[in-house]
């Protein structure tokens, strides 16, 4: 996302951003695929078997990146929403609404893989661990954002209202995390928690970082693709969209 941020103001009008995004997508998508392949190779063939958990710990190589991405995307979403509200730029509002589905996907993936990793490690599909619980609440925030935006017809008001919700949400995420952590340690003690990740051999760390960057590139490609749809949708009355539709016929 930082890359898209640099030449941001030069391409801030949807009309000029549309072709740029179009050219970027193939590159970003192929980088994502390459990183994913290398990452998977590292995850399965290079990273050693963990002496405690055997092979089950390999779930970590998508669980942790997905959890990071879900939090990171929400913060970026709130950032774009804030820019949309402050500078009244339509494009940043569209970026915020394009980020939400991919963020929700990663949150669900983090929860799903967390449950599947929890079963072999502690014998329970769901553990009220502070981070897993916060991840679940983050999923509710994403669903709240998307349903508020879907419920309002006027696209301008929809992106501004959901933008404000994203900002209120991002302020609350740390508060929720610490209150859940407080609640978790009070009831269960710190015995079962994700803090003690298995000792990180260097190859494990590289595998995880590779997967994280692969997810990141995937997110950028997906968001750029979706924002192009948003632009076409919202600018359908403008001449350049009409011309573009003519060309395609």
């Amino acid at each position: 996302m930082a890359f898209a941020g640099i030449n941001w103001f030069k391409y801030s009008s949807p009309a000029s951003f549309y072709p740029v995004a179009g050219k970027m997508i193939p590159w970003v998508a192929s980088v994502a695929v390459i990183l994913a392949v290398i990452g998977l190779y590292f995850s399965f063939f290079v990273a050693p078997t963990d002496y405690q958990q055997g092979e089950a710990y390999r779930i970590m190589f998508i669980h942790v990146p997905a959890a990071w991405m879900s939090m990171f995307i929400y913060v970026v979403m709130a950032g774009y929403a804030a820019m949309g509200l402050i500078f009244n730029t339509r494009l940043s509002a569209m970026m915020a609404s394009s980020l939400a589905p991919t963020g929700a996907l990663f949150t669900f993936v983090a929860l799903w893989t967390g449950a599947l990793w929890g079963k072999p490690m502690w014998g329970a599909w769901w553990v009220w661990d502070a981070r897993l619980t916060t991840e679940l609440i983050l999923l509710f925030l994403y669903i709240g954002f998307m349903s508020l935006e879907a419920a309002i017809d006027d696209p301008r008001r929809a992106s501004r209202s959901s933008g404000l919700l994203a900002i209120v949400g991002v302020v609350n995420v740390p508060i929720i995390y610490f209150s859940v952590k407080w609640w978790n340690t009070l009831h269960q003690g710190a015995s079962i928690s994700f803090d003690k990740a298995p000792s990180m051999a260097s190859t494990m760390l590289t595998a995880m970082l590779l997967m994280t960057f692969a997810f990141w590139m995937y997110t950028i490609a997906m968001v750029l693709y979706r924002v192009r749809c948003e632009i076409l949708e919202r600018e359908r009355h403008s001449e350049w969209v009409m011309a573009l539709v003519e060309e395609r016929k």
Partner: protein
Amino acid sequence: MLEAINLAAVRGDRRLFAGVGFSLQGGDLLYVQGANGSGKTTLLRMLCGLVIPEEGKILWSQEDIRSEREAYLQSLVYLGHLCALKDDLTGLENLRITEALAGEEISEPRAMAALQGVGLNGYEDLPVRVLSQGQRRRVALARLALTQAPLWILDEPFTALDKASVGSLKTRLEDHLEDGGMVILTTHQEIEIKAAVIKQVALAEY
């Protein structure tokens, strides 16, 4: 002095109007004309600062109304389609609370006199929900007798009024204009209001 420069509005993804501009000095009357749905109400609400213009600016004594928000709102009265009255409150309570929120404390006798001025004697302390639509309209218009705000923005003020009320509203508007006030209004009825300067803004159908 109110100035609108190159205003444009978008509703949903439909462009309502664009390039709307005018300037209004003391004593000016501005008619906003246009077919239904051409954005008359949106323009009026934009002039009140309720709607953020897609393009263009609105200046009140050379300052953008969004930076000089408090000063501008103190000198403005807006009456929309809705009467802005609470059904469970009496006409008197409604009037005094609305004026208090606009920053002008009104004593009970003055509010009573204003209500009688619009022909509501005997109805002042009844809950508004028992009043007819015309009477409710007059309670809303009673505010014009109390406010010191120079700029009046009225959306279809003559609807649901009987002949006598139309007449008294017409004279009140004319007195206000003579005292150097400004009025912006939309109306369907053909009502001749005498004013030093009469301006028009026609919102073309897009």
